[in-house]
């Protein structure tokens, strides 16, 4: 073979690509792994490894401020994600069958909270509440969280409705089911995995939120991210590693759950 240009062959195999991908995942996961490893470090200096210990977790669980912050986080995330999911489900179900003039405007409106950088609606809502003389606290945080949770719940539910066979509902109404009955007997059961998946995602987004809570919170609405931020800003104690690791593990388990729920649905 005297051919100077060699046939390069396999389309699936590219030199260097595996290496680049390994580098990519190292970049993505190494900081998380190091954080979790250091949370078990017995040493106070945070970044030098000495020996394995659960001390920081024990300390975190005995810290009243952390327990209160965790309680606030769970309360806000639960109320905001369930409310947002109910509101989003109603809208998504109607949007899939309704045709009206302002339909595109509504679609844009729902996506608005995730289109603009979070800092902008956060300070805008701060000025809105302050101008009305409303005291900042748990209430204002929950309202703002409901607003930005709606798109996270709405978009997956809407996507699932698109993939649903409209003939199922038609069949139910042909068999003299009222629209309400058809919704509860046909649409809702089929949609349920999607709704739960959307709700879990909204829950995580609310639980992890920092910016909105930081600007709209007041006395008594300190959440875990706010507490972690204040610790990081004032000087890191290894307790931060412990609560941070717990938050990471919680998000990872919840998102796995959500994706699992979502996957089940798409297989039907």
């Amino acid at each position, binding site marked *: 073979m005297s051919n100077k240009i060699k046939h390069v062959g396999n389309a699936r195999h590219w030199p260097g690509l595996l290496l680049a991908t390994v580098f*990519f995942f190292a970049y993505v996961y190494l*900081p998380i792994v190091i954080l979790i490893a250091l949370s078990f470090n017995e040493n106070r200096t945070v970044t*030098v490894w000495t020996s394995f210990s659960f001390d920081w977790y024990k300390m975190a669980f005995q810290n009243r401020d952390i327990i209160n912050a965790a309680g606030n986080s769970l309360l806000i995330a639960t109320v905001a994600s369930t409310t947002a999911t109910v509101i989003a489900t109603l809208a998504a179900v109607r949007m899939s069958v309704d045709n009206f003039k302002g339909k595109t405007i509504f679609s844009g409106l729902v996506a608005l909270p995730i289109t603009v950088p979070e800092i902008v609606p956060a300070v805008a809502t701060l*000025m*809105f509440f302050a101008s009305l003389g409303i005291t900042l606290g748990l209430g204002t945080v929950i309202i703002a969280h409901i607003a930005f949770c709606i798109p996270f719940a709405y978009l997956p539910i809407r996507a699932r409705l698109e993939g649903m066979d409209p003939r199922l509902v038609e069949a139910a109404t042909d068999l003299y089911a009222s629209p309400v009955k058809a919704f509860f007997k046909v649409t809702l059961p089929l949609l349920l995995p999607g709704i739960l998946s959307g709700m879990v995602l909204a829950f995580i987004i609310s639980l992890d939120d920092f910016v909105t809570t930081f600007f709209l919170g007041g006395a008594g609405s300190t959440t875990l991210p706010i507490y972690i931020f204040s610790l990081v800003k004032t000087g890191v104690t290894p307790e931060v590693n412990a609560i941070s690791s717990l938050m990471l593990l919680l998000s990872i388990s919840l998102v796995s759950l959500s994706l699992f729920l979502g996957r089940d649905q798409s297989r039907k």
Partner: protein
Amino acid sequence: MAGRLSPIKIRALLIGPAAAVIGIFVVIPLLLMAWISIQGRDYSGGVIWGELSGEAYLRMIFERELDDSLSVNLNYIMIVLRSVWLSLLTTVISLLVGFPTALFMATRTPKWKAILVFMVTLPFWTNLLVRNYAWILLLRDHGAINGTLSWLGIISEPLPLLHTQLAVAIGLTYSFLPFMVLPIYASLEKMDLRLVESAFDLYATRFMTLRRIIIPLAIPGIVAGCILVFVPSLGAYVTPELLGGGKTLMIGNLIGLQFGAARNWPFGAALGILLLALVMISLTFYALKLKKTGGDTK
């Protein structure tokens, strides 16, 4: 038959709540913000309602001296330019790091594709604050990177990594990387591998195939990925707050400051409008680019 309610009433009942929540707690506050940006400033924190003033916008470029004359002050403009520069840098790094991974993912078997997509998506759903905090542990003077380098004997003094522009760029890339990989993967995933094979059969080199076949097919994904990384980077608050210092302030932090220590609502509101305008320009650019490349929006 069962439809006792008119379609308009059903619409109001079902779509109404979502529209009301976002309308009242997002849209009205944004309109209020636009109004506040042209109001007089109350020095005790707040605004003098009804007193129209362009002072907040003037403040972006000029400083008012004691004798009421204006002098040019480029400090704020520098922060805006730095935000744009850091966001562009983040977008370019994300593209360089993300593209090979997306191509690798797109050429795997379906089972591996699912696993890799899950692995790319997972970090996005974990706490942004915590993920940025993890980088403090790596970048600080006695952190993992400096520790490793000095242990290897490469450096004797710790490198100043934290509180630099580089640290902010690394943190922003880390925060938004999945938004680059997933759209590129989505456009490459649909690619017919036989196109690549026929290019090879026609003696195209790998480089030529990449440039003539693969990259053109990936363009819609690349454009979407760039916008999805650029926009949140531009409005970032957490990353520059944790990994940056006084010299790496971005627009988001400058806005935040106006509602804390600086107590200047109209200026904060005007900066918010500026940030929104920059986001709108980027999105318009994206829409135009999309039209040009003929990519489908779905």
